[in-house]
């Protein structure tokens, strides 16, 4: 422990040189921009800037590139809150309550709370990275295909009804998401499925296209469907003193932020779509334990603060397998691994001992970077919140333009734009009939991973289903899932027999 502090002090010495501070700042700014623009995500941002790091020493280069990754987590919420367009995949959930807050003239507190939550959760995440990295990395390896499958099933069942409206409707949407997820090449045999001879469909349906379509385009279409007078109106304009969160907001959010940080850090260690699962799990937790669950979906600040904190700490813990094992669990860390290699650092189990100045320098820079991001993002709040002063009849076409250009930047694919518009139409109909988009998106993320893990597990076990219950971690997830399904039924029965007991307030 003491040694870690000593190393960290050296790291701060490295990170606070003028040069490294500057690169940290550049990384934070680019990261924020990349996060704000819909479509363009941290992966593209890091890849674009790698050539700019050729002349730098490895430490400065990684400080800057890492800054883009966690910086994007700060910016991602902006368009979710203002326009209902998820800036990147980990900000889908923020659309639900963030956008409602903005519609009620509370865009300022929502945006500011995202920045504050991200800062607190980011700092907690780095703390975990410093002191818990080696044992946690080993623990993460315990996740093989069966554990992965059970975790996915658990997440799927528990998180499907994330918004808590109608379980049946949520499951219907989740099944549609699963079906869409099977489009493309079979991950085990390589055969084309449901592509009907289309080459672009071979790589499957792009998640970002579905997300932006269902939320962003769907919302625009819903607005257009309203009477003409409504379009002349503006969103409620926030008054100046309401731009920043009140003490009451802070009090309500702090618990959500801390829980989000914990959830994010834990889930971030699992390979795959960790930030997405972390945000859903955080939202679900907040809704379940809230004293006023009826506010969720209508602009509850905890529904913004929790998930945004979760994606930030998930992003920090994603560095653990990269630094400790040299294995990237998520696409952005895979790009960073390439960057390390380019700078002559071989990522692997010996990296921390071979390149201590790089490891501790980068860690220290993350503390500084998170602080820079906080003071960088808070002044932007009034600027962004003022976008809502634009009358809807001008703002809505701009949102469409913004979505189309953003979508194109993801894969430079016009096909993706059509997919996005198609799902925009679907999003409009879903809104009309009160179906939620979030379960569909969750299933679209989890489905393909679930299928691969399932088939790998059974291939390893020669078709024996016992593989899922013979392994403790896997079994724990399955038991957890069963409890989740069965307990509410018992609860209801129990309540019925004790009629007149005033009823417990717990959900």
């Amino acid at each position: 422990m003491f040694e870690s502090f000593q190393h960290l002090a050296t790291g701060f010495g490295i990170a606070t040189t003028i040069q490294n501070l500057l690169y940290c700042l550049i990384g934070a700014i680019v990261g924020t921009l990349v996060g704000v623009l819909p479509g363009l995500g941290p992966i593209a941002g890091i890849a674009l800037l790698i050539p700019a790091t050729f002349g730098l020493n490895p430490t400065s280069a990684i400080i800057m590139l890492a800054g883009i990754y966690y910086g994007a987590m700060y910016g991602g919420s902006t368009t979710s809150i203002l326009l209902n367009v998820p800036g990147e995949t980990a900000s889908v959930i923020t659309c639900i309550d963030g956008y409602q807050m903005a519609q009620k003239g509370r865009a300022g507190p929502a945006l500011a709370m995202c920045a504050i939550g991200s800062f607190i959760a980011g700092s907690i995440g780095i703390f975990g990275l410093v002191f818990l990295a080696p044992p946690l990395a080993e623990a993460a390896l315990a996740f093989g295909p069966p554990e992965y499958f059970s975790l996915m099933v658990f997440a799927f069942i528990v998180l499907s009804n994330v918004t808590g409206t109608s379980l049946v409707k949520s499951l219907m949407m989740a099944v549609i998401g699963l079906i869409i997820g099977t489009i493309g090449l079979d991950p085990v045999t390589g055969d084309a499925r449901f592509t009907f001879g289309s080459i672009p469909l071979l790589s499957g349906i792009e998640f970002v296209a579905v997300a932006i379509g269902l939320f962003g385009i769907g919302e625009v279409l819903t607005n257009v469907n309203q009477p003409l007078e409504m379009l002349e109106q503006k969103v409620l304009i926030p008054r100046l003193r309401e731009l920043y969160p009140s003490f009451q907001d802070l009090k309500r959010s702090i618990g959500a932020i801390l829980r989000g940080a914990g959830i994010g850090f834990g889930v971030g260690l699992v390979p795959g779509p960790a930030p997405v699962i972390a945000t859903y799990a955080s939202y679900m937790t907040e809704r379940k334990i809230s004293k006023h669950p009826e506010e969720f979906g209508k602009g509850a600040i905890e529904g913004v603060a929790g998930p945004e904190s979760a994606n930030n700490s998930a992003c920090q813990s994603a560095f653990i397998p990269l630094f400790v094992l040299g294995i990237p669990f998520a696409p952005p860390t895979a790009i960073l691994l390439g960057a390390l290699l380019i700078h002559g650092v071989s990522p692997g189990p010996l990296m921390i001992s071979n390149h201590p100045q790089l490891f501790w320098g980068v860690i220290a820079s993350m503390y500084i970077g998170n602080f820079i991001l906080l003071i960088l993002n808070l002044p932007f709040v009034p600027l962004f919140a003022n976008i809502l002063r634009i009358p809807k009849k001008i703002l809505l076409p701009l949102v469409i333009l913004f979505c189309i250009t953003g979508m194109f930047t993801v894969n430079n694919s016009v096909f993706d734009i059509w997919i996005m518009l198609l799902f925009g139409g679907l999003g409009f109909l879903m809104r009309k009939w009160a179906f939620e988009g979030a379960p569909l998106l969750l299933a679209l993320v989890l489905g393909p991973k679930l299928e691969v893990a399932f088939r790998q597990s059974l291939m390893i076990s020669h078709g024996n289903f016992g593989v899922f219950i013979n392994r403790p971690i896997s079994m724990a997830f399955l038991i957890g899932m069963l409890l989740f399904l069965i307990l509410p039924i018992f609860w209801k029965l129990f309540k019925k027999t004790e009629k007149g007991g005033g009823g417990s307030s717990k959900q």
Partner: protein
Amino acid sequence: MAKRIFNVLFIFSLMMVMPVKAADFPVKEVQVIIPWAAGGATDLIFRALAATTGKYLGKAVVIVNRPGGGSAVGYTEGAKAKPDGYMLTSAVTPLTILPHQVATAYTYKDFDPIINVVSDPSMFLIRADAPWKSLKEFIDYAKKNPDMITVGNSGAGGGVHLVALAFEKAAGVKFNHIPFSGGGPSVTAILGGHINAVSVSPPEGIEHVKAGKLKIIALFAEKRFEMFPDVQTVKEQGIDFVMGMWRGLISPKGTPPDAIKKLHDAFKQGMDDPAFIKNAKDMAVNLSYLGPEAFGKLMANDHEFFGKLVKEIKK
């Protein structure tokens, strides 16, 4: 105010769709499609090469990962790209294997060769604490327990999968093959002990061998590794089996010859750059330069060789 915000949005949208038009090659960054997930061998090698080649080409070389379908997605996209020299694809042995196994929309004939960069022996890795101390023990166990040793690979029908199948045949044993989506995930699975062995080619897993967590149980090379001189090849131990993977660059058929020449020259300089040579050494990959013509011949030969092998295995 609205106008100012509009201006900001307008500039953003311009930034995102900057049009590029000019006569001389290259006027914009050159993209290289990697048909596997980031973090695998091909990805690592070409990221390192992209870094050193950028300065000789005058424009950045950008790596684009297009994983899926045991590389079919990436190659299909690469073959359909505009033949203008801006969208290259990394050519790896499976390019000459997969078309024999499934009905792909391409073969190596749909591409123009540019350069071959590395040629690596394949190998099997096991955990350092695995029960098998030697190749003989490993093979004996496999003979007694057919279909029981799980061997991970980087994707069904991929290069290392076929290597494992061919080795099976040469050694007279039967493994249980588990596909993963790239070399990175398959190495993670063996580190976690979820599979018994993994079929890889350097640099995958090399860092973990150095760190003592994994060991090489079977090396399918002509000669031993410089880095691990104690590890015998399988040929030395009586199984006549040598197989490896080459990795080069190709461009869609019909790319202008002067663009190919410029690309070849820049990538050759990138290969000779001391920084890349050092990276290649760290990764334990074996540099093996071939020009466009020789590389084209190599692909044609392997296409024929694997065609026969796949037919035999399918019998």
